[in-house]
């Protein structure tokens, strides 16, 4: 597997750091090299909370990524700030529940989903972050569903309710991502993405 990376961006309390951590842990569990680099804010309350996760089959060189290969955003400010930074052809996953204003980039596949509403629908009010992670995972296929779900189960083994809500949220996102044909731009130009979607020896997934 080549190196790839994803930036999770939102506000403090949105759980983007956690989403990134679950992904990173799943990748570690699958034997990958990983870095999880948060951009911690100034010594101030509130504000942005982002994390860049890099994954590689061999070695993560720079954990600091100016132009991420994919972006998962929770809200409008994060989208406006990081949307333009994504690499040409990189995936952008947007939570339209909070980022309602229309936004697009012609040169990137954009996967918009009402993750907040979807979370509520599956009874997982607080798991919007997991819906987004699921969508990203389903679309990119960098890690299998099982890899991430196992990690969620492992991390929340002490809190069953949270675990179940998180898995449900992840799954609803995953399904959306796996089947989506994101608009606009190069939805079908899969090759232009830097992600290697079907790395079987890493992913052990049974079905996409």
């Amino acid at each position, binding site marked *: 597997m080549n190196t790839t990376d994803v930036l999770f961006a939102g506000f403090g309390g949105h759980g983007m750091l956690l989403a990134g*951590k679950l992904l*990173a*842990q799943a990748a*570690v569990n699958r034997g990958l*090299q*990983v*870095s*999880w*680099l*948060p951009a*911690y804010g*100034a*010594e101030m309350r509130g504000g942005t909370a982002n994390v860049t996760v890099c994954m590689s089959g061999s070695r*993560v*060189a*720079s*954990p*600091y*990524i*100016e*132009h991420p290969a994919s972006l998962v955003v929770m809200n409008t400010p994060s989208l406006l700030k990081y949307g333009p930074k994504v690499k040409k052809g990189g995936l952008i996953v947007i939570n339209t529940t909070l980022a309602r204003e229309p936004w697009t980039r012609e040169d990137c596949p954009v996967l918009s989903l009402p993750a907040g509403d979807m979370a509520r629908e599956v009874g997982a009010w607080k798991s919007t972050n997991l819906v987004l992670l699921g969508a990203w995972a389903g679309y990119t296929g960098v890690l299998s569903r099982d890899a991430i779900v196992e990690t969620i189960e492992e991390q929340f083994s002490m809190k069953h309710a949270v675990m179940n809500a998180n898995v449900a949220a992840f799954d609803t996102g995953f399904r959306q991502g796996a089947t989506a044909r994101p608009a606009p731009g190069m939805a079908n130009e899969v090759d232009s993405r830097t992600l290697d979607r079907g790395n079987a020896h890493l992913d052990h997934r049974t079905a996409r």
Partner: protein
Amino acid sequence: MTRVLMKGNEAIAEAAIRAGCLHFFGYPITPQNEIPEYFSRRLPQVGGEYVQTESEVATSNMIFGAAGVGVRVMTSSSSPGISLMSEGISYLAGADLPVVIVNMMRAGPGLAGILPSQSDYAHATRGTAHGDFELTVLAPSSVQEAVDLTILSFQIAERYRVPVMLLGDGMIGQMMEPVEFPELEVGPPLAADDWALTGCRGREPRLVSSLYLDPVELNDKNYERYRRYALIRDKETRFDTYNCDGPYDVLLTAFGVMARVCMSAIDELAKEGIRVGLFRPITLNPFPEDACRSAIARAKRVLDVEMNMGQMLVDIRLAARGSHDIDFIGKCGGLTPSVEDVVERVRVHLAAIRAEER
């Protein structure tokens, strides 16, 4: 050995515990708070002692007391806190006490900001405080290396009876990466039989002091200490290179996480068949001057990349001995030179080299 995903700060604390450091004294400061917090949770479990100090000034003197009674001890802080320890570090060096000090650098000068930075290179490697002494300084570039160098720090500190600093940019403290811990579990007891203050039962009283009233004695003591520094230089100097086996036109120099940004840039350029080398000092002091000089000698251009205003430049220039002008990319205040910044600048140099060749 299992790989655990861990924050750099926590990994450092755990590595210290594995190395047998059961005493930690510290004062909160971002971005290293996970270190004291981790110790405050873990040390009671392993029979150790966590003390939250009233200030960094007190901290540096508490570790003086702790090391003086012959226990393995650590503190950590970040830039302004380390400045406050200056006098204390001078005393530690003057009394030949082995301690490990972690500095998770943030942006300066003054209060400035808490974002990652490398702007304490000069303070760590030169002129940390008054008087003639040196701090051995190690700079990790990954969480795993932070673990390894933490353990090495204790070994150097004790072998040569010197204070050692582990110098990380804030990033390395906040970043999570998978790490493996060596199975030291608890390090061997510190070998302080002949100098530590343990009560004078059955022996002559001992003294831990940096005061020498006789100038001749003080002069001699300083020379003796510098002989130990020379030994460290001989035996402990460490560096890393990347892509330096084959030929290269441009050499990058960087330390800590910035070296990994440079590696990405090198990989990027390698795709186009452009060969660029990287020299990364691991011991910032003693600086691997000879190795750096050899790496420079083979390059046409040298580009130093730092998250500061060019503090390591002094050492690169000393290594170059005038053979090359050293170009520099520096961002500070929490900004980080990016892969793109480096790639772009390398291209400028390559163009210039080609122009010269023509």
